[in-house]
């Protein structure tokens, strides 16, 4: 029982007991003396003396207790917290020995122990760092390789939880608030049936190298993807996890469907007027003019047929834009390829790019133009060329320029009928033009030189784009073998998934109409903050933001003007936090704003909640300051000034503080969520526990 009380309470109780004991001893002594004296008239004197002595004893004991509490108990608590931070949270730096100046050699000894621990740790860290650097380099190279794989890759545990995903997978199965998250069920993003069946099918084969092709569909947006599943792991009798590679076929299927529909329409719209015409012609006697009504009918049918063919032909030309091999190719790369090919034929060439991205099949265009240059060289028309790309309306124009003789169309037509490459006898150069919906022709330039013009219908300027979202891979392979505990209360702290969040608001009083203007959150999975899984969005509060609030968080009314309303953002946040423990610094404040929205949203924010204010009190005692600044300072976490009081800056700082508090809580013997909450409730007078 006493062990559960803090040191300061125990010392207080000790002094209280001492005072009570002394008072009892005083009372007993005075009673004995009075009886022994046997003189009733001295009673008042004994009572007065006793009261004075009792006050003196209580005062003296209280004074000594106060000195002891301030100079011994409290410093011991602070020293213990500081030592614990150094032992469990890798905090470094000098300890404040002055606060424990009445503890004799204890403070210097603790400082020396901390310094020694730090030195040992540094030496160990250096050795580990050398090896880690090597492994980190290898890891970075592997990550770069995996992030560049042009298909989406998911790695799932046997119970279908995500342990790895790359940037392409994010693009395919959902971005923004619907973006994938580690340790989430893959079925949150992809429909369950085909994946589960393929998994069972592969397990039934008993062949570790077997793979299964399947067609799966996203839960949101019904994007259809071709997928391949391959099992991995599954040693020790555990259900094996699997790798799922994804390729979007929605566009292919839509393009194919459009072409099929167009073809069907061609037959339909041509067959009917053609049949009608044949019928009409049949009834007109040969050699005589068509009677009035028949003549009108003939004209109508002919007009209809001609219009149908013209329109269908135009649509067919447009549908060629769906062509698969046409990608955006940098003109500089194209010209470099051409220069290499033309120079390899012993011809001279200079190039001028225009910083354009041309939508074309670069290989075919290079083969076509270099082939034509080679023909001209052989024909003796030119040996030196100037290759230019220039902007041409919404497209680009490739010009092969030479001085000397002009190129007759007849010769050009003849060359265009030849194979594109020596080994491709059935692919004529002209087919490249058809594929790109373009033409090529010779022109005479004003300076007397000649050029071959090849327009590329679609191009755009190369512009400096904002830094792209990193296509990093996100993973934690420990999740593949993670044991799951059904009850949050019994789960170890580092087994749980957390969403650490912070809100910025128009003011401090939600009951009086203050609203959220920003929500930011990060996820902690398997004891690690996942860099790529961030929720950070401004909110339109539908009311003015007081200047005093803007001065704190820097969010102005102009910034939130086009932001979504709180109902939409809160619903997305609810999805982001699904299945996680919520963590905030001073959680009742943030939770009050969210819980007020529950009736409107039809959702409950009934997640388990941890508050870093209370966790700080558990670790450091209530006498410390538990502001986010003070806590992060004690834990050696630096919040960049520009991030301070921004929702995401405070969120990351809170998350990092929690990650450092976690081993310190374990050091106190608080291993499970239930144990931590039980301890937190003892600090209820500091803040209300929300669980």
């Amino acid at each position, binding site marked *: 029982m006493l062990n559960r009380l803090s040191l300061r309470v125990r010392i207080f109780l000790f002094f209280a007991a001492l005072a009570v004991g002394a008072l009892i001893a005083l009372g007993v002594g005075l009673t004995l003396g009075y009886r022994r004296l046997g003189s009733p008239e001295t009673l008042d004197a004994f009572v007065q003396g006793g009261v004075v002595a009792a006050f003196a004893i209580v005062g003296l004991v209280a004074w000594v207790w106060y000195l002891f509490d301030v100079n011994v108990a409290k410093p011991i608590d602070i020293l213990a917290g500081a030592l614990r931070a150094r032992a469990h949270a890798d905090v470094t730096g000098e300890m404040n020995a002055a606060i424990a100046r009445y503890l004799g050699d204890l403070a210097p000894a603790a400082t020396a122990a901390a310094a020694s621990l730090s030195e040992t740790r540094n030496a160990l860290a250096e050795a580990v760092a050398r090896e880690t650097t090597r492994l980190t380099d290898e890891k970075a190279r592997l990550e770069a390789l995996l992030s560049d794989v042009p298909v989406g890759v998911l790695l799932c545990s046997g119970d279908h939880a995500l342990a790895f995903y790359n940037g392409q997978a994010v693009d395919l199965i959902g971005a923004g608030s619907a973006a994938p998250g580690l340790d989430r069920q893959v079925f949150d993003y992809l429909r369950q049936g085909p994946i589960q069946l393929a998994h069972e099918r592969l397990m039934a084969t008993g062949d570790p190298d077997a793979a299964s092709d399947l067609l799966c569909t996203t839960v949101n947006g019904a994007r259809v993807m071709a997928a391949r599943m391959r099992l991995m792991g599954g040693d020790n009798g555990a259900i094996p996890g699997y790798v799922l590679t994804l390729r979007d076929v929605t566009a292919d299927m839509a393009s194919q469907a459009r072409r099929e529909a167009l073809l069907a329409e061609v037959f339909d719209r041509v067959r009917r007027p053609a049949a009608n015409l044949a019928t009409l012609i049949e009834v007109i006697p040969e050699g005589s003019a068509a009677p009035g009504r028949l003549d009108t009918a003939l004209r109508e049918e002919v007009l209809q047929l*001609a219009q149908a063919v*013209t329109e269908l*032909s135009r649509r067919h*030309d447009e549908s060629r834009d769906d062509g698969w091999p046409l990608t955006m190719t940098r003109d500089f790369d194209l010209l470099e390829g051409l220069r290499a090919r033309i120079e390899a034929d012993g011809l001279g060439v200079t190039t001028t790019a225009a910083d354009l991205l041309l939508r074309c099949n670069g290989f075919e265009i290079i083969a076509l133009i270099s082939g034509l240059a080679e023909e001209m060289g052989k024909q003796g028309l030119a040996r030196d060329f100037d290759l230019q790309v220039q902007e041409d309306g919404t497209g680009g124009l490739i010009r092969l320029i030479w001085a000397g003789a*002009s190129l*007759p*169309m*007849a010769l050009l*037509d003849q060359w265009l009928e030849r194979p594109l490459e020596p080994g491709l006898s059935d692919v004529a150069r002209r087919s490249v033009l058809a594929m790109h*919906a*373009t*033409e090529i*022709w*010779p*022109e005479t330039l004003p300076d007397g030189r000649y050029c071959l*013009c090849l*327009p590329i*219908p679609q191009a755009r300027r190369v512009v400096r784009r904002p830094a792209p979202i990193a296509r990093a891979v996100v993973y934690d392979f420990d999740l593949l073998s993670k044991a799951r505990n059904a009850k949050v209360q019994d789960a170890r702290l580092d087994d749980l998934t957390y969403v650490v969040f912070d809100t910025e608001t128009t003011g401090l009083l939600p009951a009086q109409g203050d609203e959220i203007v920003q929500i930011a959150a990060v996820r902690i999975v398997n004891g690690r903050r996942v860099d790529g899984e961030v929720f950070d969005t401004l909110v339109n509060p539908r009311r003015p933001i007081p200047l005093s609030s803007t001065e704190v968080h820097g969010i102005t009314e102009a910034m939130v003007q086009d932001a979504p309303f709180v109902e939409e953002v809160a619903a997305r946040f609810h999805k982001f936090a699904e299945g996680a423990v919520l963590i905030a610094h001073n959680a009742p404040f943030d939770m009050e704003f969210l819980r007020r929205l529950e009736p409107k949203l039809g959702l409950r924010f009934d997640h388990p909640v941890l508050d870093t204010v209370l966790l700080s009190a558990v670790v450091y005692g209530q006498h410390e300051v538990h502001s986010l600044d003070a806590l992060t300072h004690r834990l050696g976490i630096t919040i960049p000034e520009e991030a301070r009081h921004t929702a995401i800056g405070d969120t990351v700082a809170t998350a990092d503080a929690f990650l450092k508090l976690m081993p310190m809580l374990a050091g106190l013997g608080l291993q499970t969520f239930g144990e931590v909450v039980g301890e937190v409730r003892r600090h209820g007078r500091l803040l209300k526990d929300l669980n």
Partner: protein
Amino acid sequence: MAEVARKRRVLVVEDEDNIAIALDYLMTREGYDHDRIANGAEAMDRIRTTHPDLVLLDVMLPEVSGYEICQGVRLDPDLADVKILMMTARGSAIERRKGLALGADGFISKPFELQELRQEVRRLLGAAS
């Protein structure tokens, strides 16, 4: 004394007989002196010998394409005043551009409205005069 207006000469280079019949009908109705040739290979010689005011030139011809004939006419300084109106059944913007780049004075897509063709011919022959 007023000069007697010379009849404008139009050469139709078209391999499809039915279109040629329609063009023959139109040119007659418009009062042009016209002739037709179906073979692209003979077209250049005919243009040189008859020196028409306007050539109605189909793009898709057997043996020699309309583009080739157009380029040939433009490379011949003696034929600098011959106007060329190209005709094609495909009529995409890029073909029109190619025709104009090779020296055609106009480009018309088949099937064409007679009114449109009439106006285009009048425009070019007006410019030729």
